[in-house]
């Protein structure tokens, strides 16, 4: 009889201790918690509605597959061959109307780059790589990645650049030309958009005098 109660109580104790360990999800650190509770998100939240107005195309680069905005529809004067009907070499000096004659290349130096580094003079509807392979305007990131390889790695993973809309899946990331003007890619010096006058006064006068 005594033995039985002992066994019962041991079983009960064991059960309680097991349950209490499972119920309380205590993690030692945030990285343990992330590891412990990770699972691909298929919840109710999506960015689909936020992305509804943007035309997107899917790309796969290495192990990453995600969406980027379609580009050609956004370029004012696409298709280029509507004006550039012949190869550039044959159009030089013609009295044709000028559309974007004022573009200045402020990208690397002229020893490294000129128009033909990216544009295909023979077929203006196409871009071309350093080795002369045609690249679609929608996939212009492939040109940038020829030189900017570390930025390209970060962009693929999501450490460089911005999402098109929300954090929730599906992933849609802006491509290089959505933020950088390819003809003048670096960001300019400018005034900050905010200035807190109250803090400035407090700091200059001191709070306690």
């Amino acid at each position, binding site marked *: 009889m005594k033995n039985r109660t002992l066994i019962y109580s041991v079983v009960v104790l064991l059960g309680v201790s097991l349950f209490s360990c499972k119920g309380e999800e205590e993690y030692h*650190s*945030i990285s343990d*918690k*992330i590891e412990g*509770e*990770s*699972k*691909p*998100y298929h*919840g*109710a*939240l*999506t*960015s689909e*509605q*936020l992305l509804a107005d943007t035309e997107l195309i899917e790309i796969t680069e290495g192990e990453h597959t995600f969406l980027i905005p379609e580009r050609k529809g956004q370029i004012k004067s696409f298709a280029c061959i509507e004006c550039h009907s012949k190869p550039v070499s044959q159009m030089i000096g013609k009295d044709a109307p000028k559309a974007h004659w004022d573009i200045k290349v402020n990208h690397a130096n002229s020893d490294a780059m000129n128009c033909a580094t990216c544009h295909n003079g023979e077929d203006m509807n196409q871009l071309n790589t350093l080795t002369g392979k045609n690249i679609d305007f929608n996939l212009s990131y492939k040109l940038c990645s020829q030189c900017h390889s*570390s*930025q390209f790695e*970060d962009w693929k*993973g*999501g*450490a*460089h*650049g*911005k*999402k098109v*809309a*929300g*954090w*929730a*899946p599906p*992933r849609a*990331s802006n491509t290089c030309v959505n*933020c950088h003007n390819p003809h003048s890619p670096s*960001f300019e*010096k*400018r*005034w*900050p*958009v*905010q*200035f*807190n*006058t*109250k*803090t*400035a006064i407090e*700091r200059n006068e001191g709070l306690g005098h």
Partner: protein
Amino acid sequence: MSDNKKWYSLDLGLNNKKESSGSCGCGKSEGSCSSTPKEQVEEELSPEEFYEAAINASIGEERHRDGFEQVFDVKMDRRSAFKKLTASLLIGAGAVTTSCSVTTGSDTKEKAQIDWEEQFKGNYKLMTDEEKQGTINRLMRSYELRTDKKINMTAENAAEDVLFGYAFNISKCQGYMNCVNACVEENNQDRNSEMQYIRIHEMKDGEGFKFDKADDNYYHEVPAEGHFYMGTQCFHCDNPPCVEVCPVQATWKEEDGLVVIDYDWCVGCRYCMAACPYDGRRFNWSKPEVPEPEVNKNQHYLGNRMRKKGVMEKCTFCVQRTRKGKNPACVEACPTGARIFGNLLDPNSTIRWVLENKKVFRLKEDLGTEPKFWYFMD
């Protein structure tokens, strides 16, 4: 309205309009409550009776118990008992007078009813979904009655399998402050005191992070030669010291990792501000004022709704946006892509890629606060 509310309601007759149309708080069925002065005298409570009734309505049976029982063995803590006692006297008096006056319309009565229920509602953290819905409905209606404008407030709970995290690229930030601007507008921050949840610190190259020497309020063209920029805000610590110290549990960590404040439960003691090692919290010394056309009408109870004076505020990772799948306003506004936001539990998210592939660090890691806000460089 639910029957198992955790607060007391003053029935001004608004809820039984159908049974007796034209009735008012005085319980009369026809005409105005105070059609003749004589009758009104009869209807009104004597000061003693009113006092008795107010105490009954506010602390009820509790007043027959001793102090210890009141504090430790009650449905209500001492704070709310005190609050209810004084507030019920004030509001009750106001509500009773307005409900029985000839000059006040049904709008005023409704306002009084809403104020009453809002005054005695429970802590948001303990509310059922129904009660949450009740309070946001009242707040929306109250705003409409006061300004004639509609707002859209939600009480969305944390989604499952979501834990929000943030990463900040120090080499990308140029100090443009678009994030600060967007934050002020999104979160209805006081325009008078120029409160800002985000700070951008301008630091000298080669000196490391010296927050005491940093300039948080520069106004010159940026980026300035020989300087770098880094932003701070509430880091939504996974082990938040600010939550531990709150004497009334007005601030807590939600399931999706957001550290939030119930502005209506906060007593403004500022313990949490002292406990935060990251300067994450802001106290409003005056009633936040936003010009009506600039008010962001998409609100969340725990986020950007209009606060009252003397409570704690801070970054909520824009709970009103992020629980809908959007990015916080600062992330969306940043022109350099220095701000990355996402779900830490989703192995396919970009924030996870950053944590796993970049050299990330957090501020004051040795404190064990486990901020969910990481810094990294290109």
